[in-house]
């Protein structure tokens, strides 16, 4: 049975001074050990959701439960131990004067013993391939490198849940892949739940489940397979269609026999080869 680690019930939220609700009556659950991608256009409520999960904002209505604890102003500090957040802009989350100080910051705050701390700083920087930069100052690092340090800072705290709020959007393709591989690895080793808020559909396609947000509401929920069959509907929501699906569609329009819209390039190539050979 799937075990919910996060329960969001009828949550509504609006920012001070705004008329429009950023989130309207949103309900869903996030399960233990799953990789959930949350997609949606800019302003669809994705990032607001991330802020609510960590108690940076509190819902106006509704309820959020994390690891069985109701998220309130009293419990927020306990809950922040369960959730690690990585935000989009690395410049806004670098607090230390050097790379290792930055990673150590969160550990110190949580009263981790020194020996343990040294080891965790080293190993988490290694896992994001930044172990060569221990004493570098942040302004010597590129945006992507800073982001990897931020991720190391979160990983060092061994949270139960990691929230990536567009965390790879400023990295180059290799950097992005490295970071995602690292997180996949960590997820497997430590049975973490990953919530990834992203515009990267290729990344979303690899998630266990996708939630589509639109105008502050939960628009659709399903497996990548189900979500990407939405096709043009996704474009209308300000999103895009993954390449293999686009390619399948155009080939079908030319009269090339294909059973469905494929989600992976490999599947599509195989199918093309099969139908070509059977002609």
């Amino acid at each position: 049975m799937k075990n919910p680690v996060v329960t969001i019930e009828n949550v509504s939220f609006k920012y001070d001074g705004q008329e429009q609700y950023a989130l309207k009556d949103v309900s869903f659950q996030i399960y233990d050990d799953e990789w959930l991608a949350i997609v949606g256009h800019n302003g669809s409520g994705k990032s607001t959701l991330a802020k609510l999960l960590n108690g940076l904002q509190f819902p106006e209505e509704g309820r959020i439960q994390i690891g069985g604890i109701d998220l309130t102003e009293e419990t927020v500090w306990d809950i922040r131990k369960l959730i690690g957040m990585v935000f989009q802009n690395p410049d806004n989350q670098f607090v230390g004067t050097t790379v290792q100080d930055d990673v150590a910051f969160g550990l110190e705050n949580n009263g981790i013993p020194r020996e343990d701390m040294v080891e965790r700083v080293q190993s988490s920087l290694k896992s994001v391939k930044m172990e060569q930069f221990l004493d570098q100052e942040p302004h010597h690092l590129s945006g992507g490198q800073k982001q990897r340090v931020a991720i190391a800072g979160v990983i060092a705290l061994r949270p139960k849940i990691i929230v990536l709020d567009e965390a790879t959007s400023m990295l180059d393709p290799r950097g992005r892949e490295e970071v995602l591989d690292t997180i996949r690895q960590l997820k497997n080793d430590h049975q973490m739940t990953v919530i990834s808020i992203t515009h990267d559909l290729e990344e979303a396609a690899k998630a266990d489940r996708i939630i589509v947000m639109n105008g502050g509401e939960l628009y659709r929920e399903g497996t990548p397979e189900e979500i990407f069959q939405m096709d043009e509907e996704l474009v209308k929501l300000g999103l895009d269609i993954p390449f293999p699906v686009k390619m399948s569609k155009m080939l079908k329009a030319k009269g090339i026999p294909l059973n469905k819209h494929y989600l992976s390039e490999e599947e599509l190539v195989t199918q093309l080869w099969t139908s070509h050979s059977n002609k």
Partner: protein
Amino acid sequence: MDISLQQVEYRYQANSPFERLAIQNVSIDIPSGTYLAIIGHTGSGKSTILQHLNAILRPTEGKVVIGDREVTNAKKQKNLKEIRKRVGIVFQFPEHQLFEETVEKDICFGPMNFGVSEADAKVRARKAIKQVGLSEEILQKSPFDLSGGQMRRVAIAGVLAMEPDVIVLDEPTAGLDPRGRKEIMDMFYQLHKERNLSTVLVTHSMEDASQYADQIVIMHQGQVYKKGTPREIFHSPDGLIELGLDVPEVVRFQQKLEAAFKTKLAKTCITLDELTDEIDQLFKRGEPK
């Protein structure tokens, strides 16, 4: 206005213990009216090149020719304002640099700083706001009441209002959703076409580079690894893949298809339409092998 980098080298904090070689032997020509994309990994030297395009940095070796000006290490340069006026840079997340009370004041700030009268600057602001696809009413609003996408457009309008001859874009679509990304890229392409505006796009996105640029420069470890038209660059993508760079989806798919079919398509496709047509041809030709 033509820009040309000739054997440019740049060392950060030269002659200090922290000296670091960022780029070396970089030669790139950007004739007037070009759309050039510069691609490479984080740390490959892209941003260092960008800062040479309007003399924020002076090369430690070699020279940069911007219009009729030559920028070298030799002497302290005077009057770089003229260069900065003619080469507009849209930095990453330009909306972070908005600061005025109204959108209009923010857009007028740049031109007025360069000696344009307030009245003329306002005329330019009206023109620029339309060029970025926003309506004139927005001019009287506070930039901080706008959505992220609108703020980015306002920031871009501020650069356009300087009426530069060359526009340099540093990851202009970072953080935007797919629709916003396409809108901004289409907008720059239209400006490029309509006004023959030289455009330099610094990006990670091979997709954008292959779709919009006439010329691509690939940077690797501070040096030019390859330059050419998109078709030339992607004709032999293996080298790029070895460097860990992305190739466009179309190119990657063509490679996988060719490997499975053990045959070559007639040409290197760089658009989805081209690739669809080629695959269609392959099916019409009939029997494999």
